[in-house]
């Protein structure tokens, strides 16, 4: 069982190596002539106006929270989906009640305008 995961470990290591090696090769083979204009953040030719770690829209934060909620729902649905064939009608109805509660929450979010971007 667990030896099936050895190829995955090696694959991840090789995946990281494929990320690291070209960048190292780029540093070795490419020129290296930095100057202050080249190293300044790109802002269409202007000097940078202010720090770029600026305030951003709170809705991004809201999206992150909603994502966590819905992703958890999906995590709940995964094991149910696999055994649905054997748990039959009882399991189906139980999950429908759960999904019903989820949908009520979803409608509430929708009505509150949490999903609006204008």
């Amino acid at each position: 069982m667990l030896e099936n995961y050895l190829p995955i470990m090696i694959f991840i290591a090789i995946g990281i190596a494929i990320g690291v090696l070209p960048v190292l090769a780029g540093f070795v083979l490419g020129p290296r002539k930095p100057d202050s204009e080249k190293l300044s953040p790109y802002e269409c030719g202007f000097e940078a106006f202010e720090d770029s770690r600026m305030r951003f829209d709170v809705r991004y934060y809201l999206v992150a929270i909603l994502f966590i909620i819905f992703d958890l729902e999906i995590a709940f649905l995964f094991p149910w989906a696999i055994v649905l064939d054997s748990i039959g009608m009882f399991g189906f109805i139980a999950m429908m009640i759960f999904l019903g509660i989820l949908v009520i929450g979803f409608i509430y979010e929708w009505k509150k305008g949490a999903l609006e971007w204008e």
Partner: protein
Amino acid sequence: MAEFWEFIREPFFITLWIVAILVPLLLGVAYLTYAERKIIGYMQVRIGPNRVGPRGWLQPIADALKLLMKEIIVPQNSNRFLFLIAPMISIAPALAAWAVMPFTDRLVLANIDASLLYILALTSMGVYGVIIAGWASNSKYAFLGAMRSAAQIVAYEIAMGFALVGVLIAGGSLNLVDIVQAQQGSLVHWFWLPLFPLFLVYFISGVAETNRAPFDVAEGESEIVAGFHVEYSGMAFAVFFLAEYANMILIAALAALMFLGGWLSPFEGTWFESWFAWVPGIFWLLVKTSLFLFCFLWFRATFPRYRYDQIMRLGWKVFIPITIVWIVVAGGLVVGEVGPWFN
């Protein structure tokens, strides 16, 4: 010495296997960029790249060499460590997800039971690369692009996850080999038919997940230049590029496995099935994957870019309700044992 060989033998053969997967994959990535430029060229009545090598066949290699010889600029005030680690975070999961990819029913490197869960876990790591790149570059365009891109990826990941739940209901397993084998029978037994809305949602979400046109606001040239990787140059940029195209191939291959019967022949169950019995299964998988990849390129040549609020509306207000409804329908089909799929 013999003991040492005994110890090293298995990792050695696994590494050979991995090389045998990765070399065609990376070549595929290189020639996908060529195919993209050629196909979009012909769609716009141009001929695309045709100077480097016969008919431009060496163009991707020339591009790679050019990027290799360019300076990697690390901007001032950037977090140097995060800046350099970000491309690696995006490429490693895009490649490592291929560890569990079945090419035929026996040609699997790691045939683990939870292979779909593993792929889902790894592909959701990709968003870290984007957000770290945007934060570490200390540039406004990069920062805005990363925020947009992360919110978009996260929103479509939910729709994609729900679509996968539908596949699991139909397939009854997390193992990709079992999911394909559950589709055996004929063209209409493949899951694209009983799960048709989920099939569409999955593929469109896949286009949005990889930040491809028409959902490419994260790197929309006309607004925020190149989005999260605007400060990257040379090989550091090339690694991001590689990750994006590897992800496209991954999404296309998964769509082929989960909805179009993977390596199963499309002529199964018809009277001329035996005519095509000599064709190896991996050929069908490649054909189906290429079909989806062509759609990626076709979309880019056809659709104008979506506005950001339209993207978010599509993800949250259209796809999630559709998928929830179809999960209920698919569950009903399985519990009611509706044929020809679930009896």
